[in-house]
């Protein structure tokens, strides 16, 4: 049984988790010129995932988080390498159209955004994995490594 089934945390989490999901996407999209970006967005999303597992231990993410990190790494690599095959240097931004989104503001499509999405996935996967492993140890009572007799 989880230690976190207090009368405050679960209702709060039910409200907070969807907000955090939206907030992480918001941070990811506005990060090119304003505070935010893939790294911070990923940390927020990881927090949301962990918060959900804390109040509902059966709701662990179905996708293997390590695989998610691998996919993110691949996305980032593709974003970095695409310009190389278009006759430009590694990591050069290749830009697409620009449009505006409500709340977020101007979004410029391009390899830089794709790279940020890759970072977003890597950070989400790794941070959530680390926290969930620690949480699982905490919940099973193994806070300290058992001594060998």
């Amino acid at each position, binding site marked *: 049984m989880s230690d976190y089934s207090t009368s405050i945390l679960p209702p709060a989490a039910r409200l907070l988790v969807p907000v955090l999901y939206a907030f992480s996407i918001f941070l990811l999209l506005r990060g090119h010129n304003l505070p935010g970006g893939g790294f911070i967005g990923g940390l927020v999303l990881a927090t949301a995932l962990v918060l959900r597992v804390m109040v509902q231990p059966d709701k662990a993410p179905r996708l293997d988080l390590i695989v998610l990190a691998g996919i993110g790494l*691949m996305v980032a690599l593709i974003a970095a390498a695409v310009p190389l095959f278009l006759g430009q*240097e590694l990591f050069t931004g290749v830009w697409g159209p620009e449009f505006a989104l409500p709340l977020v503001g101007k979004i410029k499509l391009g390899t830089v955004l794709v790279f940020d999405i890759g970072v977003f996935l890597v950070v989400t996967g790794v941070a959530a994995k680390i926290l969930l492993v620690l949480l699982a140890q905490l919940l099973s009572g193994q806070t300290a490594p058992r001594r060998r007799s």
Partner: protein
Amino acid sequence: MPADSLLIALPLIIPLFGVALLLCLRRVPERYCLGITVGLCLLLTAASAGLVAAVVQDGVLVLRSGAWPAPFGIALVADRFSAAMVLVTAVIGLAGAIYAIGHGTAKFRGFFTPLYMALLLGVNGSFLTGDLFNLYVWFEVMLMASFVLVALPGGRPQLEAAVKYLVLNFIASAFFLVGLGVTYGIAGTLNMADLAQKFATLEDPGMVLTSATLFLIAFGIKAGIFPFYFWLPSSYHVTPTPIAAVFAGLLTKVGVYALIRVSTVVYTGQQDFIQSILLPLGILTMITGVFGAASQFLIPRILSFHIISQIGYMIIGLAFFTEAAIAATVFYIIHHILVKSNLFLVGGMVGRQLGTQQLKRTGGLYKTAPIMAALFLIPAMSLGGIPPLSGFFAKFALVQEGILLGHWIAVAAALAVGLMTLYSMIKIWNEAFWKAPPVERSAPLSRIPVTMWIPVIGLAACTITFGLFPGVFFEFAQDAAAEIMNPRAYIEAVLLPAELLDPGEAAAPAAAEAARAIEAAEGIGADAPAPAESAPDQPSLP
């Protein structure tokens, strides 16, 4: 340019692609992942060979990431030395990956292959970067991957080794970071080519020496030179053989590479200081390493101590600081990587066959496995410096240069340590192969899978090729040394023409302006690598 850029980028893109792909394939059976790893290593070898060919043909190649000009963006630079190191890395990576198939990687819980590729990524990045902070990042990539590879198999000795390894390498990272801070504080840049220019015109040599010392300590810990080598023999011997072989071949050599690169490009004005420190340290490294080996009876531990003693040779080669000595060092590094990795792999085969690598309990392999005995003898005699093999030519060139320069103590130490190395190798030979087995064996000998034979035979063939055609490889090493000792071509390739200052004329801005104008008129731009100004009479390699 894009073709060149692609060639420089591929040694990084291929392993990074491997990390991403193999993380995604975590649930796929390990043997398929190992197959993919071997395939990627083959690709990496081909790409690296292409890079070497391009560098031999066109001189220094530069990739400016994000198309930012040099001091602002991160430049990746390939000259003969770094390209050769990348190629050797790919060869060792291939050998280790094939060996791992036969060795088995079950203890790594599915993380062996992505970490292995991450390790190669970090090593290649360290060799190719032209920026000191970027070098720090690659060191960390390498450190993280190697730390997890040491710790993951999980027993108590592994964890103990991992802690020692991590703590000492973190101390190195701390020194490195402080050095970076000091350097940035005095010069305002961390691009090596840019630093070379800024330091040449700097008024305050005291701070430059401080930063040089900090880097010396950081890279010294990585390279395993004299007072800092303790992490090495206490961590390598508990790692599984394919990992130990790759570590032994590559990790310390990255430190040596960084020492050579930094002291020849950035700290050219501090040569006397660097020489006065490195020469005694190199001699002590050789001697302490070889004495450490003499008292050991576990094969990988003996070999670990010999890494240290061999690093000493490379360090005195750098300390001699002449073109011939650097050429000998380059040759030495490449020879050593191939030989040392191979010795670890053969040691692992002995362990697989007899169930132990403890020399007191081995014996009799000469009768039961004569081919293995021969395959041990090739790299062992090469390491000891027996004439027709690669080690002889490496040591010969170094000692010859030492005699010419009159560094008698270094020469005497090099010769004595060579003899002691031979003693150690003969000790392994006697105990593992020659003497009768100490107890009657009840269990039959384990069979050695063919995937363990292939890399060992391949690396032995490389050693023999080095010994049969030393001229070809030495010519390459001499060209590489000429590039290293005349960093002008490196600097000109990295920086844009407007950034270039002639150190001699920097005091007179008008003259520098004129020189820049002339250079611009002659079209010596960043996009056209300057022709190799060194050794014009030597034919380039096919």
